[in-house]
């Protein structure tokens, strides 16, 4: 049984079937939709370039013999020491399984005090995107995006391209510095400025201004008010673990799994909700909100569950992380992790074509930021996995 009709959950279901699981296969999802792809929600789906049919994951329409429980939210899990456990849904249904994948993902963090003001939304689910798509179609108007992370930056780029006036407000002095490194973060800020986006860094939002139940502006901490008809809040996500509070499972910014994603006997976790000790991080745990990680983790988790059932030992889960973001006509990718010690081996930020290595304290290659260099990003991911030395990385990526 898979709890969470997400990319990770769907991939886990597919993986179990393909690995020979012949028994019943149940997928439970809080949303009414079949599992869908999230990256287009901040880009093509908002403009209409990607339609609903295209959004649905291809694997979700495969003949995998899945029993769907959609539109029902998981409310409680009682794990069994024999493996798996009993799941209670919000409509009172009770489902039992001897193997369970936890893939409930994360929800967008709400802006404190924004209430249910019209014209204010987050972007995480398809319903969120439907609302924002309609709002964009009613424009162009003025939009304020609160939070200069990937979702915020992509929405800003999409709205700006559609002719909206856009302001991006970020509390940190540099956007995305923790995930991309500060050079790349500032380059992304410059990219948005060059497209006419008003970028406010190191700026807090004081409150939202409303007129007749609808947002009409965003008041900044310095007193300035930016007038707008639409606000998009992109200030991060919170893992969906509240429903597990009584389960006795380890929780702490995610469900805590071991290095093979096992959470309890016959229970594994995958995707945005899962926190596990990554073998490349020397035992410290990590939780990733990335498309490729959801796919890799789901695939592994499904097989992990089958291996658990026959007490077969498995290798730990530890791929080199990799993600991409598309803004305007630019593609940025990060393989591995960003550090504050960097070296450019190809191009420059000014050209907006660059390969920048991220080095750890020992000088080893921990990551690579690539801007409009997709080939090098994938090569870098492989080189990092092979633990090549700096000299080799320079030669292969330069």
């Amino acid at each position: 049984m898979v709890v969470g009709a997400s990319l990770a959950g769907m991939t886990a279901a597919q993986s179990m079937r393909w690995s020979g699981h012949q028994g019943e296969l149940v997928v439970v999802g809080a949303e009414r939709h079949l599992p869908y792809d999230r990256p287009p929600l901040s880009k093509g789906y908002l403009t209409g370039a990607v339609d609903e049919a295209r959004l649905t994951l291809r694997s979700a329409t495969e003949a995998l013999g899945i029993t769907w429980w959609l539109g029902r939210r998981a409310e409680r899990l009682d794990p069994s020491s024999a493996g798996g456990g009993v799941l209670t849904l919000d409509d009172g249904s009770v489902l039992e399984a001897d193997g369970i994948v936890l893939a409930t993902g994360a929800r967008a963090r709400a802006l404190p005090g924004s209430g249910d003001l019209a014209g204010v939304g987050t972007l995480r689910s398809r319903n969120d995107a439907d609302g924002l798509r309609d709002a964009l179609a009613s424009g162009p108007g003025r939009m304020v995006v609160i939070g200069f992370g990937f979702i915020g930056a992509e929405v800003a780029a999409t709205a700006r391209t559609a002719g909206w006036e856009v302001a991006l407000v970020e509390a940190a002095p540099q956007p995305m510095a923790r995930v991309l490194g500060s050079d790349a973060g500032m380059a992304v800020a410059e990219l948005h400025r060059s497209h006419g986006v008003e970028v406010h860094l190191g700026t807090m939002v004081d409150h939202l201004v409303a007129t007749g139940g609808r947002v009409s502006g965003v008041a900044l901490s310095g007193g300035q008010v930016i007038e707008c008809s639409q606000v998009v809040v992109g200030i991060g996500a919170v893992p969906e673990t509240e429903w597990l509070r009584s389960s006795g499972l380890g929780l702490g910014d995610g469900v805590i799994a071991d290095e093979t994603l096992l959470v309890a006997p016959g229970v594994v976790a995958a995707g945005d909700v899962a926190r596990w000790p990554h073998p490349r991080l020397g035992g410290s745990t990590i939780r990733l909100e990335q498309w490729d990680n959801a796919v890799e983790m789901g695939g592994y988790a499904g097989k992990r569950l089958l291996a658990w059932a026959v007490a077969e030992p498995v290798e730990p889960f530890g791929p080199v992380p990799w993600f991409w973001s598309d803004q305007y006509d630019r593609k940025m990718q990060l393989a591995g992790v960003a550090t504050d010690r960097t070296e450019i081996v190809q191009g420059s930020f000014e050209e907006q074509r660059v390969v920048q290595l991220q080095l750890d304290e020992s000088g080893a290659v921990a990551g690579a930021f690539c801007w409009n260099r997709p080939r090098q990003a994938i090569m870098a991911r492989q080189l990092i996995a092979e633990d090549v030395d700096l000299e080799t990385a320079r030669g292969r990526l330069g």
Partner: protein
Amino acid sequence: MVGTDIAGPARAPRRQQMKVVVDFDLCESNAVCMGIAPEVFEVRDDDFLYVLNDEPPAELQATVREAADRCPKQAISLVGD
């Protein structure tokens, strides 16, 4: 202790023939396919994807299927598979 390598989804058993078709309107040159099956997919320095062999031999088909499944844009179709 030696464990089983279970990274990546397992492959479903399928038929022999396969033709690789890329929808270039969807392809974003993320180069994931090249990372998995470099014998068949290559993203060059012009940022475009080139299919090096659109009828891959049997021994490459499993990795080509993985590349198609892992494409973030689901832009790769395998005809006759």
